[in-house]
């Protein structure tokens, strides 16, 4: 890819400023959509582009928009999901802070397509700076008539509000987000009904991720064919890969969908730090199965990942080197889900805490041999049985750790604690 779309600030300094953005064709796609296309034509182009949701689930965005009822007399809302809280994930934050207007333009075009006159950007509470960036960019854009009444003389009105969350991972679940936006506790809703039918304030609502919406202007500008030419047909487009952990050059890389994971880690992120060996990768944030070094030739797109029993998720790649204790790593992962389970559904509320307790016990050397199978059984009982997928998000990585690194778990039992820790301590003692 010649030029960055999502991380365009790397090519064009100060692109977050409106004058710079406008000087680089900014809001041209929005103008084109609002003045020359019908809303359904915009939706059709997005459908044709095969843009799939970047929040992690990979649901086709255009299809989602198509679920809105045609005959409703209620207002339609767009919620931009900027509650980026997935461990190892920091892609949306970059767009929000550094390429702010492409997100706003995406929101404008999307609202036009779905006939929404109100959009909410639900931003993670901790992103205070990001919220300020959005407020500033919005103020600038309102000043130029890019939001508000009769945008581009098209007769289309749009108001955009920035709403800061109050600090819970579950607010990123789309119906949890809606509840939170309504001022309630962010308990995900039982589905059906889905938000497209019964969403914010009981009205038809589309919830899209930041990166998804940021892709929309380029689809309108360059056409669906261009978009589909980037990466695999089944889920194309530009994609931000965020790499963290034991690599030489952690960071974000905008590359086509479907990059081999090995290439991202070794060619872009500079390989494993200090010349060590790779032990494990969580390629999709923390909510999906872990991969072993012999699995990293997989292509990072929705379908290729699924084919090996993994997921693309947020493409937040967490790299772990040979010195990593996998029991401790999993204990940290499950500590997160225990802390973040909203507590609504019994299996998740009780299961996440139970998992974490068992892992602490194992890590501390107090585990029993049967704990390993118990952890596995708890995961099985949690999965697929709850309102939202937080239970699955805890159970899936857990089971994969147990399966792929079982020896380490067994060693924690037989050796009464972490063998790696002991190995690290012994030379000093000697």
């Amino acid at each position, binding site marked *: 890819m010649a030029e960055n779309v999502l991380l365009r600030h790397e090519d064009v300094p100060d692109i977050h400023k409106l004058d710079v953005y406008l000087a680089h064709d900014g809001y041209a796609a929005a103008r084109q959509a609002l003045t020359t296309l019908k809303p359904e034509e915009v939706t059709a182009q997005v459908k044709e582009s095969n843009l799939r949701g970047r929040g992690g689930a990979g649901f086709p965005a255009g299809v989602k928009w198509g679920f809105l009822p045609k005959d409703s007399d209620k207002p339609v809302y767009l919620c931009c999901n900027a509650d980026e809280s997935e461990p190892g994930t920091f892609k949306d934050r970059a767009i929000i802070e550094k390429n702010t207007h492409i997100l706003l333009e995406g929101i404008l075009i999307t609202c036009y397509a779905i006939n929404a006159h109100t959009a909410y950007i639900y931003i993670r509470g901790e992103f205070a700076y990001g919220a300020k960036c959005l407020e500033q960019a919005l103020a600038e854009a309102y000043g130029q008539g890019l939001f508000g009444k009769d945008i581009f003389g098209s007769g289309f009105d749009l108001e955009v509000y920035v709403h800061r969350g109050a600090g819970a991972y579950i607010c990123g679940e789309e119906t949890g987000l809606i509840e939170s936006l309504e001022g309630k506790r962010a308990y995900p809703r039982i589905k059906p009904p889905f938000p497209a039918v019964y969403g914010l304030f009981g009205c038809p609502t589309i919830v899209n991720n930041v990166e998804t919406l940021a892709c929309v202007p380029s689809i309108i500008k360059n056409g669906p064919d261009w978009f589909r030419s980037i990466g695999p047909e089944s889920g194309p487009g530009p994609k931000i890969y965020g790499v963290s952990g034991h690599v030489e050059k952690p960071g974000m890389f905008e590359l086509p969908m479907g990059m081999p994971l090995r290439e991202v880690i070794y060619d872009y992120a500079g390989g494993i730090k200090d010349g060590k060996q790779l032990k494990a990768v969580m390629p999709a944030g923390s909510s999906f199965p872990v991969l072993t070094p012999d699995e990293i030739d997989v292509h990072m797109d929705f379908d290729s990942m699924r084919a090996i029993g993994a997921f693309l998720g947020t493409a937040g790649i967490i790299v772990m080197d040979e010195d990593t204790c996998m029991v401790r790593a999993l204990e940290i992962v499950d500590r997160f889900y225990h802390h973040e389970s909203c507590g609504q*559904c019994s299996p998740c509320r009780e299961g996440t805490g139970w998992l974490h307790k068992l892992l602490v016990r194992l890590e501390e050397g107090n585990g029993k041999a049967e704990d390993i199978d118990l952890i596995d059984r708890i995961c099985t*009982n949690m999965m697929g049985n709850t309102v939202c997928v937080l239970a699955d998000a805890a159970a899936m990585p857990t089971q994969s750790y147990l399966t792929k690194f079982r020896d380490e778990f067994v060693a924690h039992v037989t050796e009464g604690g972490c063998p790696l820790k002991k190995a690290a301590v012994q030379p000093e003692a000697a």
Partner: protein
Amino acid sequence: MPTLEIDGQEVTVEDGLNVIQAAEQVGIEVPHYCYHPGLSISGNCRMCLVEIENMPKLQIGCNTRVSDGMVVKTTSERAKHAQAAVLEFLLINHPIDCPICDQAGECKLQDYYMLYGAYKSEMQLEAKVHKGKVVDLGPEVVLDEERCILCARCTRFCDEITQTGELGIFERGDHSRISLFPGKKLDNPYSGNVVDVCPVGALTSKDFRFKSRVWYLEKTPSTCTRCATGCNIDIYHRRGEIFRFRPRQNPDVNTYWMCDEGRHWYKSFQQDSRIPTPLVRDESSFTVVSWEEAGKRVAHAVRSAQDGHGADAVAAIIGAKATNEEAFLLSRLLREQIGSTHTAGLSWSPADAFHDDFLIHADKNPNTQGLKSLGLLNGGGEAETILAAAEQGQVKVLFILGADLVTAFDQERIDSALGETTVIVLDTDYNSTTEYADIVLPIAAAVETDGTCTNQAGRVQRLSQAFPPPGEAKAGWEALALLSTGLDGPDSVSISDVFGELTHSVPAFAGLTYGKIGLQGTPLTGAGPETDS
């Protein structure tokens, strides 16, 4: 009308039912905690997971509308596995303190563990999450946070039914707990219902807790007599003592609820003021007599008054707490046997009685409508008329059935009206009016007798005898049958017998039978002469 299959049974049900409701119609219980038919669907407990053909995941029965051709399996291996798993999750942090828990015996955790769980526990005791114990929520309710399964029935009750919103869920994950919002107390007039909806021992009743194990209690379906609404209730009692009232479901009256005032009404039936034996006044004090003797005295008084001053010298005032049967028998005695025109009803409530637009009625009498149907509260049948006649010395014998005239009228008035009158009181308790009595006949309270009351909406509902009245007291209808035969009138051998006679003489009740009223009551079908608007 979708037709579907549940566990191999074909069933056709009305539209809009969920899987739990449809299964119930063929006698299959889908286990559940958070689902309650009177509350919104929450879907949080996950206990009602069932397998539905052509759906990859298990579905929660509460949020799954049945549709034509659906094939539901509530006992498949997958469903059973999920149900046991959910129970295990619910119990890992539960204190399992059944021996000291007031809910034991009516706890859905206990019941379902036996039915759907019965696994070996793998949770270490010391690893449990600890939370608040004996949390005071308000005048009626105590919370044990550790026993709570967070089904949110109580919060939904306060949000949706009373709309008072005192309760919320605070914290996250396995630290979640039910609590009061800052500055709130759970003190709405219906707060006791949260104890009933709580499927576990988290919310217990301050009034009932630790008084009795529930399995020692008998349960008798009846009707609350605290006000004219007539909420359907179960009386929980043992050896002639009532421990609690709980609402009994009736979609046409109280749905699933009752007020706290009604809940505490049971106490009014077991006070020290109960009259144990018939009494007659000799000189200034009461003497205990047999029913036979008391009956003779009544007959004598009535005959003397009749002979000396005419039939209208005998009068009766019937309180609106009397059952239809009691009111009917006494009014028949007066009107038909004695021939008196002086028979009146009295429906008195305090002017400032609390009421609302939900279940609490301003009329604190259970049977005002019934008296109206019997022509006792209108068209001259007013207690006022009789008092006026008594003041003029025209009333020589006055029957007072279940009415405290001193409270309803002022004392001076009663002094002047009853001074020279032979007063025959039929009532449950001593009160200011029994002070004026010459003959006292103790009758059964509402919880000790069979009979019917007509609620404010014109619905006839049954009272059931939970246990016999104390001492020598008799059911009101039995006492009145005895007085009737003493005056050479007809006898009645059973409550359905009395009700049958009532339906023949009172048009509003035409076509009904005692059996037909059933446990859910029935609206009056016949057009009564004086049914109230």
